[in-house]
């Protein structure tokens, strides 16, 4: 008999380690022999810690389970799958999970993420095995045909980026995985690294074969210590298993992979800043061009991709580009692991094909607000994404459709706020955050964000003449159009969207702000 208790950063923050220890103790005390497996999280976070019991190949889930409830679960016969207030039944049949279309996350949360045997049994390394039979051009072609776009936020076609690096002539090329998942409201990179690390390793090895890079780095943020621990272990096992190194699976092809830990700088999620940091320097933005694809790490051609982008590649290679491209809508192909958080009843990880409405995500999956109060706004695409009102919840998740309402997909994070939020204060917070995180390379971001905080303070303290509003809008204009990277360039989004949709939170009326913000 097996009992599964997640070893996931969030599940552990809710006591999963203590629950696992209590189950072990209780089983020993009762003379019951069971195998305790530490899986990843399935991403149904309102049910964490979610304990699963497996008997004769069938799983029954119980959650949320506290340490103090463990003895009661044994008494109630949870090992036989008996009734209990926390009983959720077959986890795969929970509607939240059953209705998803999981490609990247298909293994996450099911088994021991560090078992190579389990990974292979569940279809792992099929993509790498096929890639080893193809030419670099064929691999790039396959990824291009799939329509995969960068999941870090920019949405740039992955195949085109890879082709640029493939065609660059150099003695050394690199694959860099951006795992500096700094956006508030996002955790899908963390879940993949903790819950299916071999998937990322496989995706990076395929990328290496595709562009002729023999060395790779994962740049992981320091705020993710459990992900670091799990990934270090996964790297060792993958090396020992022959999936990394000088001769991948006896093919004669090489790819080595290293882990590098960031040091708490949000701007290092921007690819050129990340590369500077990865070279051991201050994470100052590099002006583009030249593109990292041609002059990247140590000025060598470098593919920089987000975790989810790279983790999408193995299934594209294994199942073919067509299968991937059949999912999604328009130019937004495949699936997106959406991360629901903030004030929602059922926050968690929802991987679905593009084309779903925000409404479905927030209410059918998210269950509406946790507080029971009206949902006032969502912030989509990270801390520099816009705030959108309920009147726009009919918009579909789609790069182009969201752009039409000045929204962004970003890294797929959606944070919900009830009606106690004040968007004026959130706009001020966005400016303050930018001021604290600006690398200082360009003036619009470095100075603009500090001036932005000052102007917001004036507005929020009641000094609301027309000149002040004009000043704020002008400042946003300069930051959007003259910043070197997305940090300064996008900080105005939460400010302007707040003004546009919730002017009363700033002390203005729609008539005051209307003509001014519409131009931007």
């Amino acid at each position, binding site marked *: 008999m097996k009992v599964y208790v997640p070893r996931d*950063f*969030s599940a*552990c*923050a*809710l006591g999963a380690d203590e629950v696992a220890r209590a189950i072990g103790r209780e089983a020993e005390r009762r003379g019951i022999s069971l195998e305790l497996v530490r899986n990843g999280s399935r*991403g149904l*976070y*309102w049910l*964490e810690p979610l304990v699963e019991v497996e008997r004769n190949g069938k799983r029954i889930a119980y959650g949320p389970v506290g340490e103090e409830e463990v003895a009661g679960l044994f008494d109630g016969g949870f090992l036989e799958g008996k009734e209990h207030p926390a009983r959720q039944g077959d986890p795969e049949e929970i509607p939240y999970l059953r209705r998803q279309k999981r490609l990247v996350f298909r293994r996450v949360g099911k088994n021991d993420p560090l078992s190579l045997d389990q990974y292979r049994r569940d279809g792992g390394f099929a993509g790498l095995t096929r890639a080893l039979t193809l030419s670099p051009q064929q691999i790039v072609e396959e990824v291009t045909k799939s329509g995969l776009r960068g999941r870090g936020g920019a949405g740039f076609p992955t195949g085109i980026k890879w082709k640029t690096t493939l065609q660059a002539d150099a003695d050394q090329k690199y694959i860099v995985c951006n795992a500096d*998942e*700094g*956006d*508030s*409201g*996002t*955790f899908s*990179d*963390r879940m993949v690294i903790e819950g299916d690390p071999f998937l990322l390793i496989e995706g990076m090895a395929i990328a290496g074969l595709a562009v002729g890079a023999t060395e790779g780095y994962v740049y992981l943020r*320091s*705020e*993710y*210590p459990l992900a670091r621990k799990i990934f270090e272990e996964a790297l060792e096992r993958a090396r020992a298993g022959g999936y990394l190194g000088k001769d991948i699976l006896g093919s004669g092809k090489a790819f080595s992979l290293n882990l*590098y*830990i*960031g*040091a*708490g*700088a*949000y701007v290092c999620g921007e690819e050129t800043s990340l590369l500077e*940091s*990865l*070279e*051991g*320097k*201050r*994470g100052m933005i590099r002006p583009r061009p030249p593109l990292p694809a041609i002059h990247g790490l*140590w000025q060598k051609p470098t593919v920089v991709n987000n975790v989810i982008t790279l983790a999408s590649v193995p299934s594209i290679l294994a199942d073919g580009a067509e299968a991937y491209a059949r999912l999604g809508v328009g130019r937004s192909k495949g699936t997106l692991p959406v*991360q*629901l*958080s*903030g*004030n929602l009843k059922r*926050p*968690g*990880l929802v991987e679905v094909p593009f084309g779903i409405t925000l409404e479905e995500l927030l209410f059918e999956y998210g269950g509406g607000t*946790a507080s029971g109060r009206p949902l006032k706004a969502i*912030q989509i695409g990270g*801390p520099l994404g816009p705030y959108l009102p309920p009147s726009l919840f009919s918009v579909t998740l789609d790069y182009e459709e969201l752009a039409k309402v000045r929204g962004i997909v970003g890294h797929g*994070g959606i*944070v*919900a*706020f*009830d009606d106690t*939020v004040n968007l004026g204060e*959130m706009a001020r*917070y966005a400016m303050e*955050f930018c001021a604290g*995180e600006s*690398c200082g390379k360009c003036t619009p971001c470095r100075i603009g964000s500090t001036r932005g905080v000052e102007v917001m303070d004036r507005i929020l303290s009641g000094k609301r003449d027309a000149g002040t509003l004009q000043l704020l809008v002008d400042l946003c204009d300069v930051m959007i159009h003259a910043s070197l990277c997305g940090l300064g360039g996008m900080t105005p989004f939460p400010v302007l969207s707040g003004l546009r949709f919730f002017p009363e939170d700033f002390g203005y009326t729609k008539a005051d702000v209307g003509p001014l913000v519409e131009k931007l």
Partner: protein
Amino acid sequence: MENGKVDRKDELETILDGFARQANGLIPAFHAIQERFGYIPKEWLPEVARAFNLSQADVYGVLTFYHDFRLQPVGRHVVSVCRAEACQANGSAALIDRLRRKLGVDFGETTANNEVTLLPTYCFGNCACGPSMAIDGKLYGRVNAERAERLLRGMGVLE
């Protein structure tokens, strides 16, 4: 005391030896020094600079760029609280107010008895289970002001 200082210098040299051979070893070296000593003493920077063949301005510039690195020691315990949007949506403001009031310090400060340093964090990636706070690296989810106070009492740092 004098001997203690010599030992610390030896350890510093060992750490620097390990990282100075890597082209990008400075940030990992700072991590290692801070992990071992709790902070990065400013008077060590000349030695760090020498090991990496960089100017003192360069290594100081790298150190001060990153929020993780500290030039001052912290208290016996470090309490980090998430200040980002997803935790704000779940009421982290009340939690932060309570911590500031009960500890009598603002972010970046250490209590007078040197027990607790309060630090902000911009996201633990625990957004679905916020508000989030960590004590000495152990993360706690769904923490409201009352629970935070209980946790601090449990550590014996509040009356």
